[in-house]
């Protein structure tokens, strides 16, 4: 058993868990943040993607203990003051989700992708970088559309602010 402390969605949290506890289970079971999902046991599906110190990671491939001291953002931490994040809004506007199970991981991956590429993202890059996220419902068509639209919008916003 280990006591683990980290910042999750801007709040310091701690919990006691088994040494073998994965970050995803710590988030779901100890913190009750069930938006982060488990879709596989081989780190292939991406349903569990969260941000760790600003970068997307699969929370099923990291031990909770390894994440001690880090800053984690989960899907629950993305919307601010009740306003959907532009990526969340784009997924809704472009019907980028159906059952919603892959969606939190997709959104977290997309936010990181846009952070790295900005509005310069193109369809080929989006499809290539979605390699680690599986969606069984949407056929990806609208997810790709949503991510490109969000990249445009966020790129535009950033330029306007600069």
């Amino acid at each position, binding site marked *: 058993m280990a006591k683990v402390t980290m910042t999750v969605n801007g709040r310091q949290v701690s919990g006691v868990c088994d040494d073998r506890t994965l970050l995803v289970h710590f988030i779901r079971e100890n913190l009750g*943040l069930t938006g982060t*999902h488990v879709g596989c046991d081989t780190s292939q599906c991406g349903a569990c993607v969260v941000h760790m110190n600003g970068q997307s990671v699969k929370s099923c491939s990291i031990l909770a203990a390894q994440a001690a001291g880090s800053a984690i953002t989960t*899907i629950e931490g993305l919307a601010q003051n009740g306003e959907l994040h532009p990526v*969340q809004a784009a997924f809704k506007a472009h019907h980028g989700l159906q059952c*919603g199970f892959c969606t939190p991981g997709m959104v977290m991956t997309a936010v990181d992708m846009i952070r790295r590429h900005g509005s310069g993202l193109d369809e080929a890059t989006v499809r290539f970088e979605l390699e680690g*996220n599986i969606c*069984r419902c949407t*056929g990806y068509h609208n997810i*790709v559309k949503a991510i490109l639209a969000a990249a445009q919008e966020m790129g535009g916003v950033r330029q306007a602010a600069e």
Partner: protein
Amino acid sequence: MGVDGIGARVARKEDRRFLTGKGRYTDDMSVPGMKYAVFVRSPHAHATITGIDATAARAMPGVIDVLDGKQLLADGIGNLICGWMIHSKDGSPMKMGAWRPLADKTVRYVGDAVAIVVADSVAEARDAAEAVVVDYDLLPVVTDPLQALAYGEPQLHPEAPNNLIFDWELGDAAAVDRALAAAAHVTELKIYNNRLAPNPMEPRATLGIYDAGDDHYTCYTTSQNPHLARLVMSAFYNVAPENKLRVIAPDVGGGFGSKIYIYPEEIVCLWASKRTGVPVKWTCDRTEAFLTDAHGRDHVSTVKMAFDAGNRIIALKVDTIANLGAYMSLFSSCVPTYLYATLLSGQYDIPAIHANVRSVYTNTVPVDAYRGAGRPEATYLLERTMETAARELGISPAELRRTNFIRSFPHQTPVIMNYDAGDYEASLNAAMTTADWSGFAARKAEAEGRGMKRGIGMSCYIEACGLAPSAAVGSLGAGVGLWESAEVKVNMAGTIEVMTGSHSHGQGHETTFAQLVADRLGLPIDSINIVHGDTDKVQMGMGTYGSRSGAVGMSALAKALDKVEAKAKKIAAHLMEADESDIVIEDGALKVAGTDRSVPWFQMALAAYTAHNLPPGLEPGLKESAFYDPANFTFPAGCYICEVEVDPETGRTHIVQFVAADDFGNIINPMIVEGQVHGGLAQGIGQALLEGVRYNDSGQLLTASYLDYAMPRADDVPSFNVSTSNTPCPNNPLGVKGCGEAGAIGSPPALINAITDAIGNNQLTMPATPEKVWAAAQAAH
């Protein structure tokens, strides 16, 4: 029509909770005192259990109890059932081998559940499950259906000699044989339809809660069909009386058919909760899902299609062997029979059809409905044969189809179905125009210059959905009726709750059902709430599968709305001292037509419940329910065209474009319909190019994770070009058909036809992996 009404691309109401991590799936549920279950599963594909020793496991940290099949039997829990009775052509009923929720004597596939461990944590339950000692005497194994049938050894169930479940036929064999003998040309083909794992992204899960105080059971479960789960668990498995069992299927992360059935884990967790006195939750991991979720497809067929001198089809003869796995799952028997052979006429006027289907037990996971269920198998067989025939006859595939299209409706096929309406040429023309069919030769020449082999392929599918008239399915062997129910409750303040027996697991019912209400009552969509998935809240239901929610579920809602409107008009007429036939409902008010007199909707609703001033004799309140039993199936149809480039060096197939032109009748929300098509196309492309369940000779599953089973990823599929035409369905009040399965039905043949066109070799089986395509391309030289 209001802005949110029928035909509008309304963004989905349910999205906000999914996008913010507030979706509530079964594994997200926890209740006080809840413990965790892990199943002990057979590592062998076929064996006799000679002993189970759980002594060590019971003593391990955190373990509450370990329960096995003998205890389950002692408590009177019944066998799993198959709900659709098929008779062989000799009149004998299908041979159903016993399927115990926990195997007590024999295991028949790797993953067959043997015992359940309940512990404080999943990790502790898993540790203890490994400490349960099960002694097995190994038996010989068969995974190949042809082998299982040919030698009849090893045999899986004593009830089914030679592993034959049924030998069933449909159609007129003599007429077909006569036509074959007289034909100007006969095209023959062997068709293999690969076994698939449905793989909804949410793994199955169930939480069983027994409340000893009330002697009441609650089952949270990942189901497409909670009412059926309750019925079957009560009436057949003896888990709990129906009036003491509540089944809740909350947010469900995809189903595609695999969550229609009732699985052993749901039964066992409920029973274990009573046995142990604690709520018991089980969540599948992905490998367990591959091992135990019912698989789809798995047909081997031979087909003969006979033509006259004018290239008109005069007969079709099909012989199919369907592998149903180790046990008969809930709907398994109807998939390769009434959902398959009845669609073998496709879009064509075929005077004589005969299908013979033998279904077989093997030591593999049970096979049941998966997106399309029988209809993809029929379409693949027919459309591969049409394309092959066109090549043999030396005419264009479009021309051959045009020659044979059904053009007048209603059309009675020789295999039961009576098509109500359609315009197949419209879809064909639309798809060919969008795909620039006539420009293909130039594109092919250009690709050749780059060393690429370019091919184009089409498929014209038909689907029977909106399952289905209860009397019709009953006469064909179904164990239940396939109506749907809806209840509309107008609250005192005028907001609305709709209780529907349809279940949404990604299809967007909370939006489309609300659109129908908004359309009818002129109310904003946010004032309408759709409730589903809970047997305590929804009166009755038959769930969602086979693209039935629109055609059947929404038709029930339309009927209930008729009653609500009629009563609301009575109340409003009384309030305004007008004639009830003069009242119209629009823009959130009830108006006297042709005057400026009106009563706001909410005021009428309040009046219904205050009951101070109602027409004499009128019952207070405003809440109406309806059941709807469809008059016929509905028949969506369409044409898909796929263009590919194959790299002859590597065998890799690149999809250059994919065009889908569908006829779905009237459409409630085009955005959602397009999304359904996209998803279906990706699953069909997955079947054609990537996916395939593989067992080795000893029955070990070789594809038990995402490392071994290739799921389509974003890079494997193109952006799709989809469009619809809209011939209304004449048989339901909304004129809707169904769109959920179309993509998965129509796409595999279009894609394989394109590849075979590119490489000039028709001998190709799905999945068309680069290795296979490369070898086939080499062989064609």
